[in-house]
């Protein structure tokens, strides 16, 4: 068995050493966010500030990173979440993960604090801590231009340097945006992390692996979602879909539908601004939008950014969204948290509770506002702390749109109640992906599982969360998982009676999903149709991964992050949503357009094998082989 090699880097002492990963940990957690959470529990004491020098930030990969398997460029950054105080796990595409593995390391555990700005360089097995004083102050684009072209890069911008609570990390034009991981880099004086190597990434059964990934790539190219929709529209294509089902946050989630949403839709972007699509290394999907801005071709916005710098702030100018997306990227700001915090500040202003000079529909000062947030200038330093902090100072908790402190993504959960449950239970806070992304099955996809109905939603949320966590931990992009929606449904379309019937009948499938979750040990098969990643993982690691054990990996990932949150003082009380979503119907004439967390959470906890307070039961941890473990 080829065990992963990690390095531990202490910036206070300047000492670096290899950090062995035990066989037991590798078998149980394999890498990525799961192993990172386990290591954070082992290596850091409870109650540390995210900015304490003793705090660890872990940059790591999954076993499929860099192997050539499709959509496997994703690497992970885990630490303590600046916004929530719980787990931070932020995920990014590009070439950095592959470069890190080629340089000889599957992960880096960084602790301590450098006296002056540094660049950590990992080149062909050698780790160096280099002076980066001359890079400090540069934006993420400039600093990457200054670094050697051939290297994988992970950098912070001005926002990270000033420890803005939602500062992210940039790698090329991609971002590990969420949870404030850029601020943690800033707190340690890390301006950049670079990696380069020529080592071949080992695969247990190379011949069978190569054959399988060819088959998998063909499958991805044939599926409507990964072979047609995502290459043509990227995630941006969701704007009109969410709007059509009233799931597009509008005016700080006051509504879910904007008659002018098409002005910032993926279709409009593709028809009027797109220069071409592009993609990450080894990815056949190529979902990235390329657009022109000031005569330069740059990465276009994702769905979240279009929604949040569009209808959610009452704006309808696609060129403004392109610009603000770019500005956030070069400043090193997470677009979701930045735009959502701005929307909250706009509503505070509208209600006369605070005045940041921000008004719904007025985009004239937003670029300047983002720059002031990144620079923590004057009162904008308040905005730099995120919407939860802001609501504690100025009021408005009922319409501060976050869960646990992390701003929610651009799906209005009152028209997708499973997504609401997902936001509430997501370990890193209001995240649609960590939350199980039920919006895809309820409101924006081909299938529509009765968006207001609570039946079966808890069970499906658990299933989806486990599946997405496993895909992420393996080092894969979650878009590669969208092929689990059968192609036949795309052929029939959303209006066909079969598709409509399945959407209606799916609310009766709760017991079936529970049965599937229960019989995982006997699910010793792999199929392209459900979770193709399991077979790739089996062939890459030599470990007995099948559909059932792959879902176990996802469940283990979800639970280990939950254990981290519980250790840091979060409780079931934090599995919550702002009152706007649970108490105020989106449509006053339809009382069921709220998220009934009171009905959903007890079923969710039972399905997870947690007690009533939201704590994993001993028998659950035993089943997952997570009890009393030591590396």
């Amino acid at each position, binding site marked *: 068995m080829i065990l992963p090699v990690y390095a531990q880097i202490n910036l206070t002492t300047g000492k670096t050493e290899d950090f062995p990963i035990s066989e037991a940990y590798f078998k149980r957690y394999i890498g990525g966010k799961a192993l990172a959470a386990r290591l954070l529990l082992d290596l850091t004491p409870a109650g540390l500030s995210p900015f304490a020098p003793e705090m660890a930030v872990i940059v790591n990969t999954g076993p499929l990173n860099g192997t050539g398997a499709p959509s496997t460029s994703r690497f992970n950054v885990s630490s303590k979440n600046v916004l929530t105080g719980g787990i931070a796990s932020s995920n990014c595409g590009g070439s950095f993960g592959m470069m890190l593995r080629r340089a000889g390391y599957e992960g880096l555990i960084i602790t301590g604090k450098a006296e002056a700005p540094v660049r950590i360089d990992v080149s062909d097995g050698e780790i160096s801590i280099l002076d980066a004083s001359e890079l400090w102050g540069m934006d993420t684009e400039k600093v990457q231009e200054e670094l050697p072209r051939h290297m994988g890069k992970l950098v912070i911008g001005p926002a990270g340097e000033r420890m803005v609570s939602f500062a992210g990390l940039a790698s090329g034009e991609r971002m590990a945006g969420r949870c404030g991981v850029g601020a943690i880099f800033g707190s340690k004086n890390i301006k950049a992390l670079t990696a380069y190597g020529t080592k071949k990434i080992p695969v247990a059964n190379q011949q069978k692996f190569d054959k399988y990934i060819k088959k998998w790539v063909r499958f991805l190219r044939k599926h*409507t*979602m*990964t072979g*047609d*929709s*995502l290459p*043509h*529209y*990227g*995630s*941006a*294509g*969701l704007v*009109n*879909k969410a*709007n*059509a*089902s*009233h799931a597009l946050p509008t005016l700080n989630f006051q509504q879910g*539908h*904007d*008659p002018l*949403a*098409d002005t910032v839709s*993926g*279709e409009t972007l593709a*028809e009027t601004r797109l220069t071409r699509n592009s993609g990450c290394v080894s990815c056949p999907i190529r*979902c990235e939008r390329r657009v022109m801005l000031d005569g330069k071709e740059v990465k276009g916005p*994702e*769905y979240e950014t279009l929604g949040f710098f569009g209808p959610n702030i009452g704006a309808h100018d696609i060129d403004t969204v392109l610009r603000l997306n770019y500005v956030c990227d070069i400043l090193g700001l997470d677009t979701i948290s930045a735009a959502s915090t701005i929307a909250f500040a706009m509503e505070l202003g509208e209600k006369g509770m605070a005045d940041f000079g921000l008004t719904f529909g007025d985009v004239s000062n937003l670029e300047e506002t983002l720059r002031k947030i990144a620079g923590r200038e004057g009162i904008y330093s308040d905005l730099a702390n995120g919407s939860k902090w802001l609501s504690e100072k100025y009021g408005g908790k009922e319409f501060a749109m976050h869960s646990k402190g992390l701003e929610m993504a651009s799906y209005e959960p009152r028209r997708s109640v499973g997504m609401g449950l997902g936001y509430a239970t997501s370990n890193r806070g209001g995240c*649609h*992906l960590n939350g199980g*992304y039920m919006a*895809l099955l309820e409101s*924006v*996809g*081909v299938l*529509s599982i009765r968006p207001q109905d609570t039946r079966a939603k808890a069970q499906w949320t658990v299933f989806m969360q486990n599946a997405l966590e496993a895909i992420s931990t393996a080092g894969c992009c*979650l*878009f590669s998982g*969208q092929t689990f929606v059968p192609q036949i449904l*795309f*052929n*029939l*379309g*959303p*209006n*066909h009676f079969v598709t*409509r019937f399945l959407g209606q009948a799916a609310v009766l499938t709760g017991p079936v999903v529970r049965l599937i979750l229960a019989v995982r040990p006997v699910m010793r098969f792999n199929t392209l149709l459900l979770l193709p990643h399991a077979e790739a993982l089996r062939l890459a690691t030599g470990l007995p991964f099948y559909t059932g054990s792959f879902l176990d990996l996802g469940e283990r990932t979800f639970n280990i992050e939950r254990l981290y949150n519980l250790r840091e003082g979060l409780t079931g009380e934090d599995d919550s949503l702002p009152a706007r979503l649970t108490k105020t119907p989106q449509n006053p004439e339809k009382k069921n357009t709220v998220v009934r967390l009171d009905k959903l959470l007890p079923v969710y906890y039972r399905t997870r094998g947690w007690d009533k307070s939201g704590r994993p039961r001993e028998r659950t941890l035993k089943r997952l082989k997570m009890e009393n473990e030591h590396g």
Partner: protein
Amino acid sequence: MAEVNIRYRGTLAGLINKEEERITAETVREVLAHIKTAYGAAAGKTAKSMLIVVDGESIHLRGGFATRLKEGETLQFLPICGGG
């Protein structure tokens, strides 16, 4: 009968080589019948399998294919998308 704007997007626009038109129709079903008659069975089938929205709202929140159209409304045929 109402005069409505039709916007064709995604593969349907390529298939019929047209992005928009104005037609007179009473329901969504009549618009689908128009597409089948004017542009052929393949276009009709494609249109039926797309997400259909009236003034930005899914027909499933209205009356499905029986949704009645009002003067000046815009009916769009949108591709199914994914992401996250």
